[in-house]
């Protein structure tokens, strides 16, 4: 297929080849009715059916809007906090509400605003910027959005019932254990946030596959917009960072619900384990929020200065370096826990090293501003504001990375000031810039430049008044998270200044909402278009189907380098100018050099993601408020919805290839690594493997910290039979699955029953392996509640069990596909992906067994 592509592609236009020399993929005139058909298949739903919209132009706008709603709500909580602290010994609100407010403010800003907001911008912008008609799994992004929105709203509403979590946004046990937090407040956090993280991971998988597989032909990695690079690293960081906190919340919830003592020191647990798991996620989290914002700035600065970004390669390298380094710094939130000074030095150095990639980006933006000529539009103001605030926050970040200084300012208002500078500077200002910058894509009218400037100045001055003062408050000795403070410590005036500043910020946000109400008109079918004279693909004239034809990209700023590009794209001279299959579709390209591989048929509006998400949210809420039966029913319904939408995926490749250019025909599916679904599965396995690795770390960590009471000496280990038996069952199951995989290649030519029989064998073998693994421990009398050793050994099986549950669903799905004649050599994505996951599960099972049986013998226990 790829050979055809290179012939069909157009000449490299980077050297501004005269337009006459371009060989267009499609000739003019276009057939009658082609455009009308394209418009018809992409026609958006109306009325109530807006809830069933799945394409990114709709879900993206909903998603950004919802995240902004949570920003405003969490901001209102902050105003209440600031009002309480305006004066010493204030009696405005009591400690109960205050402790819930700061917990909710932090949690919502991080989990319901910051991460979703940047993810939402990605869902909206990436297809536009990459020249795709949509993301590869539109129903997955719709599901992720609705799950987040429903779950987030329910989570927020807990504050009205006095049930909001009150353990601080990092929820340190033992304060959050049943003993010290007996109410269900903490469960709201654990289940609510755990669930919203799953939604974030779903979005991240979508973004990785979207960036790797749905770029315009010709957009090789070296021509990828910086924003897409940033989103790729962002999604990668979610994939490797979020599993740690998901595991953490699982462990803590199991401890709370069933008394498995992972964090209880007297029974061999350790509260600091939570801190490691939390910050292994929590530190990358900061960069998860910052990188997409920096990526947006790298798109806006060149437009505002009307010149390409200076040092593109260095900036991309800086983004990648930030991604790697950010996983090596989590301990810098734990300097005061009494960690040995050698490791402190290492983490201190790593924390400072991460300042260098940020420095590279800051100076690349400054150099770009110098190379071009800035237009002082509202986005430019926000970018300059961002440069100042973020630089200041970065500098205080370097300060707190210095261990002795951190010993003083850790958990004081200095740190509160620092991270608000970093997060507001590094994320909120770029986001406001981005909203002002990209709203002409989504809305019929751009926002007001006049109001925009007011919004900027109110926010800029407000933020500095509020948070600069807090540095001093912290140095004057005020710890964070106190609902009151004495009047004789000179903190009153400083706090009053911060409160006044916070109301200025609120005024700025209010003005912004007014601007939105006056000018934001989405979903009208028209947009304001390229008001900034920008260079990248999202500014091509577009409808709900994005661009009329999908351009061939030959440089980083195609609109600047190919002056007739917009015209030619609209005329339909590029790829896929219509809807040849009669449905929604986009081109799948190869991951490195973006050669067309096949045509992906995309789904239209569907109720399955919306309903599936509501049922999933209800499942988790049911668990929280202990309505187990209703919860279970919702869980089953949620799975049914997901299977419903999975059912019509993977059409038969043997169907006729489709013409997307005069000389280019593409099949409508692919198998193995060329397939977008294979990429999705591999990414999902990475998530699962990371979570499991975190559990292995937890096992080893508990042994290291509490070895002597961790495994009680009278506890005997199971005999090695209980190691060999489950291992053998797992391997046999995998062997059966390997047979299924091979046999699928012979279909439809040969009999399908051997495949079905092997599948029917593989599923119970896997379950039996898990059962034997658990029974082997159980028969020695080991209990998960007696010590953290028991808890963590059973936890290995719990994780295995959760994955096996998914595996059984997948296996049954394959079986159903086979029984209904939807499985053949040319239509085998379900069997490919299931086999991949199956073998991974066997490998994980073997590692888990070795850890439980071999490791204790190696270190001389049992």
């Amino acid at each position, binding site marked *: 297929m790829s050979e055809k592509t290179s012939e069909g592609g157009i000449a490299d236009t980077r050297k501004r080849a005269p337009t006459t020399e371009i060989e267009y993929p499609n000739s003019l005139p276009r057939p009658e009715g082609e455009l009308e058909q394209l418009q018809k298949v992409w026609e958006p739903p109306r009325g109530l059916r807006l809830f069933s919209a799945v394409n990114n132009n709709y879900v993206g706008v909903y998603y950004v809007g919802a995240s902004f709603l949570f920003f405003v709500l969490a901001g209102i909580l902050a105003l209440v906090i600031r009002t309480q602290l305006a*004066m*010493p*010994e*204030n*009696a405005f609100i009591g400690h109960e509400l205050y402790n819930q407010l700061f917990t909710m403010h932090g949690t919502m800003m991080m989990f319901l605003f910051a991460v979703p907001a940047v993810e939402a911008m990605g869902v909206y912008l990436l297809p536009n910027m990459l020249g795709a008609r949509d993301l590869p799994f539109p129903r997955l992004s719709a599901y992720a959005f609705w799950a987040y929105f429903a779950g987030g709203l329910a989570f927020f509403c807990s504050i009205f019932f006095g049930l909001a979590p009150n353990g601080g946004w990092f929820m340190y046990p033992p304060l959050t254990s049943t003993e010290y937090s007996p109410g269900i407040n903490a469960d709201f956090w654990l289940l609510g946030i755990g669930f919203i993280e799953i939604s974030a991971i779903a979005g991240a998988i979508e973004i990785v596959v979207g960036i790797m597989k749905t770029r315009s032909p010709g957009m090789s990695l070296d021509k990828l917009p910086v924003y897409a690079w940033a989103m790729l690293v962002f999604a990668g960081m979610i994939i490797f960072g979020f599993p740690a906190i998901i595991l953490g919340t699982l462990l803590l919830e199991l401890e709370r619900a069933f008394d498995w003592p992972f964090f209880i020191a007297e029974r061999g647990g350790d509260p600091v384990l939570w801190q490691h798991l939390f910050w292994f996620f929590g530190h990358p989290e900061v960069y998860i929020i910052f990188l997409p914002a920096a990526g947006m700035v790298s798109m806006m600065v060149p437009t505002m200065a009307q010149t390409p970004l200076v040092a593109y390669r260095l900036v991309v390298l800086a983004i990648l370096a930030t991604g790697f380094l950010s996983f090596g710094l989590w301990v810098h939130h734990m300097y005061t826990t009494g960690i040995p000074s050698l490791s402190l030095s290492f983490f201190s150095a790593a924390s400072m090293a991460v300042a260098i990639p940020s420095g590279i980006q800051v100076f690349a933006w400054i150099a770009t501003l110098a190379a071009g000529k800035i237009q002082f539009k509202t986005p430019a103001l926000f970018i300059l504001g961002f440069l100042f605030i973020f630089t200041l926050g970065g500098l205080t970040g370097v300060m707190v990375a210095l261990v002795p200084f951190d010993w003083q300012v850790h958990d004081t208002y200095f740190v509160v000031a620092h991270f608000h500078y970093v997060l507001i500077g590094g994320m909120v200002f770029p986001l406001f810039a981005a909203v002002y910058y990209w709203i002409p894509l989504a809305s019929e009218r751009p926002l007001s430049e006049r109001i925009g400037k007011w919004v900027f100045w109110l926010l800029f001055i407000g933020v500095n*008044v509020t948070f*600069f*003062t807090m*540095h*001093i408050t912290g*140095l004057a000795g005020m710890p964070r998270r106190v609902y*009151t403070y*004495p*009047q*004789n410590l000179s903190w009153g*005036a*400083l706090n*009053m*200044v911060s409160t*006044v500043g916070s109301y200025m910020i609120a005024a700025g946000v209010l003005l912004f909402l007014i601007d939105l109400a006056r000018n934001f008109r989405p979903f009208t079918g028209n947009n304001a278009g390229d008001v900034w004279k920008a260079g990248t693909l999202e500014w091509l004239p577009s409808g709900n189907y994005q661009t009329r034809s999908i351009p061939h990209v030959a440089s980083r700023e195609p609109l600047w380098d190919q002056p007739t590009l917009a015209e030619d794209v609209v005329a339909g001279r590029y790829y896929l100018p219509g809807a040849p299959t009669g449905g929604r579709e986009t081109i799948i390209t190869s991951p490195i050099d973006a050669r067309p591989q096949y045509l992906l048929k995309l789904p239209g509006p569907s109720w399955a993601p919306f309903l599936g998400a509501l049922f999933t949210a209800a499942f988790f809420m049911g668990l929280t408020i202990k309505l187990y039966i209703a919860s279970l029913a919702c869980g089953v319904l949620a799975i049914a919805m997901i299977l419903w939408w999975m059912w019509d995926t993977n059409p038969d490749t043997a169907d006729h290839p489709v013409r997307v250019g005069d000389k280019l025909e593409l099949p409508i599916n692919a198998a193995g690594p060329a397939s977008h679904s294979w990429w999705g599965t591999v990414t999902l396995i990475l998530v699962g493997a990371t979570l499991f690795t975190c559990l292995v770390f937890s096992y080893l960590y508990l042994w290291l910290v509490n070895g002597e009471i961790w495994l009680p000496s009278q506890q005997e280990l199971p005999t090695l039979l209980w190691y060999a038996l489950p291992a053998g069952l797992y391997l046999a199951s995998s062997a059966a699955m390997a047979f299924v995989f091979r046999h699928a290649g012979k279909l439809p030519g040969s009999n399908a029953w051997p495949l079905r029989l092997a599948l029917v064998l593989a599923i119970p073998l896997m379950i039996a392996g898990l059962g034997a693994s658990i029974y082997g421990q159980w028969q020695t009398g080991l209990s998960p509640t007696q010590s953290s050793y028991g808890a963590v050994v059973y936890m290995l099986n719990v994780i295995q069990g959760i994955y096996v549950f998914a595996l059984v669903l997948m296996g049954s799905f394959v079986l159903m596909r086979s029984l209904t004649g939807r499985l053949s050599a040319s239509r085998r994505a379900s069997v490919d992906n299931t086999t991949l996951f199956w073998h991974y599960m066997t490998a994980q099972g073997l590692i888990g067994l070795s850890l439980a049986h071999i490791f204790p013998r190696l270190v001389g226990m049992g």
Partner: protein
Amino acid sequence: MTACWHGAIIARGVLLAAMVLAVAACQQEGVPAEHRIVDGDPERGRAAIVAIGCGACHHVPGVRGAHGVVGPSLDAFGHRKLIGGVMPNEPTILVQWVQDAPSLIPETGMPDLPLSQAQARDIAAYLYTLR
């Protein structure tokens, strides 16, 4: 260092504005002649109230954090007719009362407090400004 002083200067500016707005209720001018206390300084009295911790038992208007519920609220104390529900509200009695209440009413829960005569006068002066 510069940054710090800037913060302090901003803080001072805002404070100045707040001070101008602050009610000048702390002088004895609004207090009727029969409730004025010679050499009593209400502002010093308020500081003494904070230092001794009257708020542990009393709600004292104008004193931050004084929300005690053990003794009576001192809201509008300048209009109060009786002290301890027994004696007339007169300066000489009040000064003795804040210093050594049990000497006037042995059943009271209010202890004799470690206050100097001057402090007691200041506190009494402050209480009479509460109107």
